[in-house]
């Protein structure tokens, strides 16, 4: 793979969400924008959306790669973040009034998502899904979705990497997912002694006012870890 032909796809939740396009380096807002400066790909696609769970992350990635066959294992690197396991995503039409407003690829991929958390009881489902699925099932489906994404990428031999949004997502992961991920430690980006992006940035005082998301300095540090991990693997 050469940087001349390299394409970068990132996906995940709000920790990864931000503009697509290589000119995002002009005004970096998230870790992937800082990583672009190092990688210098000629195409950059960011499928991440704020509020997204692992269902949407997995399905968006598979859909994108199945329908855009010019993104091949020879020319594309993929990095995603595993997000909270309390999230439920329901695929919907692009123009659904409750669809995620920040999914910039909705028109292009011809679908959008209703993104909810376990404690959410807003429209249109008013908590019905959470009530009937239960937390354990939502977690289990999220874990199976992460496995789906990774097995898809491996079967097609993509160069891929993943990381956790926060330590809590790791702690919530079912045992079968942890075993699965531990067998892929070369693909798993960690942050010194912290597993999650949030916890690393929190430890070093690099969070914004919401006390959850990294600030720009935090995102730059995350990008450095990403770059270092990938360089070491190669």
């Amino acid at each position, binding site marked *: 793979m050469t940087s001349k032909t390299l394409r970068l796809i990132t996906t995940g939740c709000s920790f990864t969400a931000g503009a697509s396009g290589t000119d995002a380096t002009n005004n970096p807002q998230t870790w992937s924008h800082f990583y672009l400066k190092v990688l210098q790909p000629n195409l950059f696609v960011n499928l991440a959306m704020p509020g997204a769970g692992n269902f949407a992350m997995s399905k968006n990635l598979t859909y994108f790669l199945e329908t855009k066959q010019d993104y091949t294992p020879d020319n594309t690197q993929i990095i995603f973040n595993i997000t909270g396991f309390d999230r439920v995503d*329901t695929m919907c039409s692009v123009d659904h009034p409750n669809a995620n407003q920040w999914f910039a690829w909705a028109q292009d991929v*011809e679908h959008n998502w209703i993104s909810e958390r376990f404690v959410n009881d807003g429209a249109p489902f008013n908590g*019905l899904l959470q009530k*009937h699925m*239960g937390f354990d*099932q*939502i977690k*289990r489906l999220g874990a199976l979705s992460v*496995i789906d994404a990774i097995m898809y990428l491996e079967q097609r031999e993509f160069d891929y990497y993943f990381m956790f949004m926060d330590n809590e997502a790791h702690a919530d992961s079912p045992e*079968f997912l942890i075993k699965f991920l531990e067998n892929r430690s070369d693909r798993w980006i960690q942050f010194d002694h912290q597993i999650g992006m949030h916890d690393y940035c929190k430890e070093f005082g690099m969070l914004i006012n919401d006390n959850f998301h990294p600030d720009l300095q935090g995102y730059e540090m995350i990008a450095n870890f990403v770059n270092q991990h990938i360089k070491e693997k190669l």
Partner: protein
Amino acid sequence: MTTYNNLLVAGSSVTAGTSDKITAVTNPQVWPHFLLSALGSNIFCNLAMPAGGNISIAKNLIYTLETKPEYTANDTLIIFNIAPLDRFDVMCAVDNPNANQHFSWAKDFGFNWITSGSFTAKTPPFNGILEKNMGYDAIVNFNALELIGLITYLEDRGYHFHFILDNCSILTDAPTYLTDFLQAKKRHWVNFDNHLALREYCQSHNSMIDNEHPTVAGHQLVSQQLEQHLYQEIQ
């Protein structure tokens, strides 16, 4: 024919039946039971449920293979039927009052499924609210992506697997990216003489009990087709 210690099947009502090996062999009701007798596998697991869609088919299979290491790639034959693409299955707790009553593995797995059975069904507890908010296209897309996820999973882990189609309208309903994907997996796709799907094959042999389900004799014919395919594969 190559023998497999484990026979693992999944699907909808055209595959659903007991996992009890003795009952399956002595009183075969569905094609997996006839196939079990022909293969002589020691372990038999039928994950199929009536009204099950591709979401539960995919997730039940992957969950089984991730949590039950005895189903090794070397010693397990997996066959599943692709269900109609308009079904949406929601994973739920074992004791949910609306859970599918025919999923015999629920307690063992620690979860069950609320199965819609079709896009137009308005059964409790969702009463059509999921279908209304997702829309037909999103449900079909979701099903398609589940199937792609399942097939790539099985390929990546090196399992010997095959799939069959419940009926031909699945291909008409499928998005192009799914039909392209399935065409590229032809070696795993079992056809029935000149029929692409189980239903149309059984209809051509007057072996249906209703518009959707084969008779026991129809199931036996389906099993014979699968046996023939497996035999030809090793020739």
